[in-house]
């Protein structure tokens, strides 16, 4: 991940820890405009959406992450796990 995205991911995690999900999502979206093919960012956004209770978008984001995983097994299993949790 590019340092710019990393910094924004860190910022997002800080917001998430404080329960400020809209800001947390905004940081990830900012990162996605810089690095739109970074599956970790889509996955992170999916996780935020799930915490916000938006199951449909959580699953969509996980699928998007999956489509960009290019064979990264860890990431794929994380994405599949998110899909499963979104469907619980």
């Amino acid at each position, binding site marked *: 991940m*590019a*340092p*710019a995205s*990393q*910094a*924004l991911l860190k910022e997002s995690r800080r917001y998430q820890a404080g329960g400020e999900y*809209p*800001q947390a*999502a*905004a*940081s990830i*979206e*900012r990162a*996605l*405009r*810089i690095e*739109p*093919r970074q599956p970790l960012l889509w996955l992170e*956004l999916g996780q935020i959406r799930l915490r916000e209770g938006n199951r449909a*978008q959580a699953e*969509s*984001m996980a*699928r*998007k992450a999956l*489509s*960009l995983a*290019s*064979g990264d097994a860890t990431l794929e299993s994380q994405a599949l796990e998110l899909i499963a949790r979104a469907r619980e």
Partner: protein
Amino acid sequence: MPSPKRRRAGALPLRPLLALAGALVLASLVVLAAWLVALDRQVVRQFEGRRWNLPAQVYARPLEVYAGLRLGAEEFQAELTALGYSRTDQPRSQGSYSRGGTRFRLVTRPFQFWDGRQEPQAATVLFGPGGVTALTGPDGSDLPLLRLDPPFIGNIFTVHGEDRVVLPPDQVPKLLTDTLKVVEDRDFDEHIGVSFRGIARAMLANVRAGSIEQGASTLTQQLVRSYFLSNERTLSRKLREAAMAILLEAHFEKDDLLNAYVNEIYLGQAGDRAIHGFGLASQFYFGRPLTELEPAEIALLVAVVRGPSLYDPRRNPETARKRRDLVLDLMAEFSLLTPEAAAKARSQPLGVRGKASTFASYNPTFMDRVRRELRDDYDDDDLLNAGLRIMTNLDPRLQALAERRLAEGLAELEKTRRKQAGSLDGAVVITGSQTPDIVAIVGGRNLRMQGFNRALDAKRPIGSLVKPAVFLAALQTGQFTLASTLLDAPLTLKLDTGKEWAPENYDRQYRGDVTLARALAESLNLPTVRLGLEVGTRKVATTLRSLGTEKAPPALPSLLLGAVDLTPLEVAQVYQSLASGGFRAPLKAVRAVLDAEGKALARTQLSVDRAADPAAVYQVNAALVEVFERGTARGAKGLLPAGLVVAGKTGTSNDLRDSWFAGFTNDHVAVVWVGADDNRPTGLSGASGALPIWARIVAGFGDNGYEPVPVTGVTEQWFDYDTGFAADPGCADLVRLPLPDGTELPPKPGCEPRAGGGGGMNWLRDLFN
């Protein structure tokens, strides 16, 4: 005592006269009172209407700078210039920068973003041949990211073309209001709307030669004149003006009146655009916000008040300078400036930036889309009065690029095709490739001509732009691959209407069996119709709908050749879903809406929905790259930077009425439409009309080439472009395209691949590709 008789004998009977006079006076008073009441109502209504008028301010996207950003030093400087950053040797104040070669040092401006306030930041940006190579903070350590303040692009008004930057009192420098009072109206704080002392002083001053001409009108009277009155100089108008000024003063505080004046007064002309208010004038003359102006610049604006045409600093710099210096003298005389500061200011050039062409870009067709998106959630009153701040996705560089290339391209087409100048028009839409951001909209070649926004409102048949949806529907069934073959031969269809339909290829040739890859790349009609009929027109219609058209098109056979009317924006939606690997997200121009205090009211949440199978989209897109290698767009390769991989599709409607091209790089999707407003045939195919314009726009992006992330379920394989067989490169035209895992290709008879299914050859080819 005079006798009654004498009185009667006299010619003047006093009592009736008195009564008459009394009645006359009474009547006049009544008329006067009625007049005043009417005036009063008018004055109050107008002022209230304007005073609270804080139209929504619209901003382009903020530029995010980071190491690795593909942006040239010149483009970066252009952004800073557009933002009105001033160039100095030692950038210390916010909104300033220095440049040495490819190294920029700058201090950003603070800005209230939707995710919080961004404080000013000092940074150094270093550029290399590929873009930003380093970004460091004031202590020399690496900065991960630097967000500039977003360029202001305009206000939302009900009336087209009116433009203003409305400033609240706290954004108006005191030096400006003090100077205005000293120069225009010294008794402002005391008078009741008109100033008899001012009039006397003005008469005196006008007698004395050489002295600065004193205005007889108070600021309040000037404000009234700007609000209500024409510029004719009659006594009745003068009286009306004075009465209205007194009424205004009776109702409102001095500070409110002064603030209204600052936002209202006429200060210049940019073409057909009147420049009202100091906020907009500051942008117009200096390209910077009012709060950042130096005393010399404030003095110049105050000088211009007296006569925006006579003291136009661009046309009459000498006259303007003389008056500016007089204003500076007064500023020193009244202790607004120290004598040293005034002397320094006098030595400075006017500092007016060049042509009005560099003035904050005015994008009526993009703003049109912004307005439409906002209309769903906000009523007019909010937009016009609530001081909202609208953050958009506009990329001013790409917007300007698209506007220019479209206008040039249409003019060139008219010239080379010997068409009447102005007979063609067009539209461009540019979006992000993975994020659904509308970054540019060009609604026609002449943006000053308000009205028809072709990018949003021209619904036109899309022709072959529909074909990727046909092929996607087919590949999603799993019954076809890009190496499968279709028959390119005459075809006659009996329609439900009883009529017969016999579509033809564009070149009226027949090729026998062709691969799907070839049929799509070369946009062959007959194989496409056969494929679509086999898959089912209903499936094609739902695929198109799922990619993003507003309605499902009628599932008729003619749909397979693009008999469906879409706007350029809808086409962009469809192709954005392809570019993003089969995920649909509603395209948006607006990113966030903030209230006057900077609190986020609404944010466009990034959302995506799976529109198609990513593996099938991956295969379609690979064939769309072949459009440039072997297909209908190969002629445009030379217009693109060498080696830039792009994917796209031509589209032509019946009788050459509409010429389309839609395609994408790794970073952006662009759609170009060319046609005539009266729907007359243009003689242009997608390849001859829209494509060269598209290619010249995309060449200016500086984007990364299209390079999709590999998806699971497909593997790149070599096969013969014509037959779809595995073959030897010596006797076949091999292409390497994705096929579903496990696809077994039969060997081409008489041209069998050597060394086990072409594997050895593939390895060698891979090395060279």
